């Protein structure tokens, strides 16, 4: 597919002609892949017609490393968007049904135990537990059989000076803290809540706050937007005071609140492309976009905070551009490849953005197609893209993505303050999405909280429980 001549030497219209004549790259690929097949089934024909209907006739001829890996990706994905190479049962739209039982089995196996070569995961065990718990509940599983084990697994990962680490003896880290708290929120028992040491957590979060407004992930660790999001998740769910602890280093520079300079800092992470980066100056990236929007949606109602701190039209344009065509799934950055985990990282941005800017601005059906057709692994679990192995991470976030496609949310600030950082407790289900769906009832996953990414209702229960506890922190009054 290389074009030898210099395309800049041509007039636009002659180039267009050439573009159009060779633009059916997608169809060519799919045709050749299916040459040996005698007839297309009714479903395959329908899928091909759909793909044709959403594919733009424009395609550049210039080949670069990026277009080569994109072509390779299409070669891997197309057979799954058209046919059914896994031989799954088909739903009434001709797409593979959600392989619920297989995914449940996969996630249960993903809870370990693991052989020695998994040592590289030693610092990420809280994540594994969270992905499995969230994934299982999304599939409608009762996870109470794991309650005690979740609590005991994390009790040794809690650091004496506050926060959670990856395991016993590891330093506290905001990512581990985030994953541990969310796992305990999903368990949702009094034992789970009570196992978190709020006092030391408060002091640890105070040590992570930086003068420029952001948060580091660990003591002397990197400062990025994950830190800001994870810290606010902890502050809000545990109903901690917004006032910085007396020993927080940022106090020496005049800061008094966890929110000081935070909006400004998140704002500095929005790039010229409209997306949000890990830290000011870095490249816009889907996962960091979710963290940034999540952070703002905890600071206040999204309509207020997102509009106040971000250029929303630029953000929406950038988010929309992340949907790969014709794959339908999302990628994380410009000219990168579709990947199932962005079903959540980008897909999850929409509920928050729609609460700030109006509804109906993205393509849910195309995402649903990618997840059902291309992201389900034959033996269970979900994947980045066809050809990759499943893991708990991609399983959890593909399923969350399916939930973003299937449900509509609305944000309603009701009367009566619930205290500090109570903004994320005003979300309500606005029904199921029904317009151009490609899933049946049997393919529905459970509702997921738009900010906390836990089963809807669980965050509210947690916050309520902590609101009823008396807060005492030595020296903070």
């Amino acid at each position, binding site marked *: 597919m290389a074009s030898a001549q210099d395309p*800049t030497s041509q007039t636009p219209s002659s180039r267009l002609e050439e573009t159009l004549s060779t633009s059916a790259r997608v169809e060519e690929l799919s045709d050749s892949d299916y040459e040996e097949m005698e007839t297309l089934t009714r479903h395959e024909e329908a899928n091909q017609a759909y793909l044709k209907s959403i594919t*733009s006739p*424009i395609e*550049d001829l210039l080949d670069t490393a990026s277009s080569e890996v994109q072509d390779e990706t299409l070669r891997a994905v197309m057979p799954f968007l058209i046919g059914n190479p896994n031989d799954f049962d088909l739903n009434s739209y001709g797409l593979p049904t959600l392989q619920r039982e297989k995914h449940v089995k996969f996630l249960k196996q993903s809870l370990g135990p*693991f052989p020695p070569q998994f040592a590289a995961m*030693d610092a990420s065990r809280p994540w594994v537990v969270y992905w499995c718990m969230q994934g299982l509940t999304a599939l409608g599983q009762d996870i109470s059989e*794991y309650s005690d084990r979740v609590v005991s697994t994390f009790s040794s990962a809690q650091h004496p000076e506050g926060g959670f680490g990856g395991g016993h003896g590891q330093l506290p880290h905001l990512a581990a803290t985030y994953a541990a708290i969310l796992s305990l929120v999903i368990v949702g028992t009094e034992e789970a809540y009570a196992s978190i040491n709020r006092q030391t957590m408060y002091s640890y979060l105070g040590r992570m706050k930086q003068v420029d407004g952001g948060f580091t992930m660990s003591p002397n660790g990197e400062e990025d937007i994950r830190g800001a999001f994870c810290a606010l998740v902890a502050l809000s769910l545990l109903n901690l005071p917004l006032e910085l602890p007396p020993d927080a280093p940022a106090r020496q520079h005049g800061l008094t609140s966890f929110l000081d300079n935070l909006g400004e800092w998140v704002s500095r992470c929005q790039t010229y492309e409209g997306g949000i980066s890990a830290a000011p100056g870095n490249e816009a990236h889907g996962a960091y976009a979710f963290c940034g929007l999540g952070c703002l949606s905890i600071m206040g109602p999204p309509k207020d905070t997102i509009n106040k701190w971000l250029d929303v039209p630029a953000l929406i*344009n950038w988010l929309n551009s992340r949907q790969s065509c014709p794959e339908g799934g999302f990628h994380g*950055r410009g000219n990168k490849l579709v990947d199932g985990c962005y079903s959540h990282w980008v897909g999850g941005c929409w509920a928050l953005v729609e609460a700030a800017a*109006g509804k109906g601005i993205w393509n849910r059906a195309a995402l649903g197609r990618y997840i059902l057709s291309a992201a389900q692994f034959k033996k269970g679990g979900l994947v980045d893209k066809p050809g990759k192995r499943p893991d708990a991470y991609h399983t959890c976030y593909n399923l969350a993505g399916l939930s973003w496609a299937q449900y509509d949310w609305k944000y309603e600030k009701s009367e009566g303050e619930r205290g500090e950082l109570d903004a994320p407790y005003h979300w309500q289900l606005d029904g199921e999405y029904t317009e151009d769906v490609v899933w049946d009832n049997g393919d529905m996953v459970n509702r997921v909280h738009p900010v906390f990414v836990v089963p809807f209702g669980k965050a509210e229960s947690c916050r309520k429980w902590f609101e009823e506890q008396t807060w005492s922190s030595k020296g903070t009054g």
Partner: protein
Amino acid sequence: MPQKFYHDDPEWADIEPIAQDDGPHPLAAIAYTDEYSEAMGYLRAAMAKNEFSERVLGLTEHIIGLNAAHYTVWLYRAKTLETLNADLKQEIAWLNPTALSHLKNYQIWHHRQTIIEKLGSPEGESDFISTMLEQDTKNYHVWSYRQWLVQRFGLYTEEELNWTESMIEEDVRNNSAWNHRWFLVFGVPRDGREVDEYTVQREIAYVQEAIRKAPQNQSPWNYLRGIFKQTKRSTEDLKTFALEFANVNKPDDIFSSHALDVLADIYAEEQKKDEAKKALDLLATKFDPIRANYWNYRKVLLDQPEVAA
């Protein structure tokens, strides 16, 4: 690599290792090798007594070899190096091959940043980063580290710009390279100075040439739109350029959806709603139908006075 143990090492005879306590029936448990398990036991013990010593450096090096994604070990190593006033150049020499074999690792880059910050010199770093990017031209951590390096040492140089340009030449779709160029030229306002007109013109010419190579490549379009937005200049030139690739009245002569997107914005700004609608309709129905909902949403916004104003 031969295994290494500590229980029979006289140098560690004074240390009672702390076994990992995971409670009963832990989830996501790992059947560690004896070697890893023991090394971690000695590290926990060393950390519990706040020991920062040469032997701790050796121990952390050992564990990183077994599990480079262990942030605790990296952080404790950094603190040990600091306490011992260790030779940091030697540390960088050790880090280089380690980084090459762990491309996607977060911790290694933060560690490097800590060390280079203390060393106070970026010497050799640009070359090393370039080697890393040859392996993975869009590695987020490596680009982010390079941005830190530029900012920390003020490397807003001709040389840096030329290198970035060579990355773009190699793959005009490398969005990370475009972002780095933006960072160098327009990114962090330095001394509150505006970017001078000569530079802005140079950038516009450069990016336009890049778009002509592949008009459906969004990376340079975003860059171009970014320039007009940041410098608040009249969009007249942008419109003229976009019209090279799309004319809403010649729907058969369109070969960049991004040009249509730009035109839709400019027409909206100029209160030419019908023209804007034509552009958005072309996008929704033919040139970018997967995003039809979005283009239709933009059409609705056209009729909302506060947005059009």
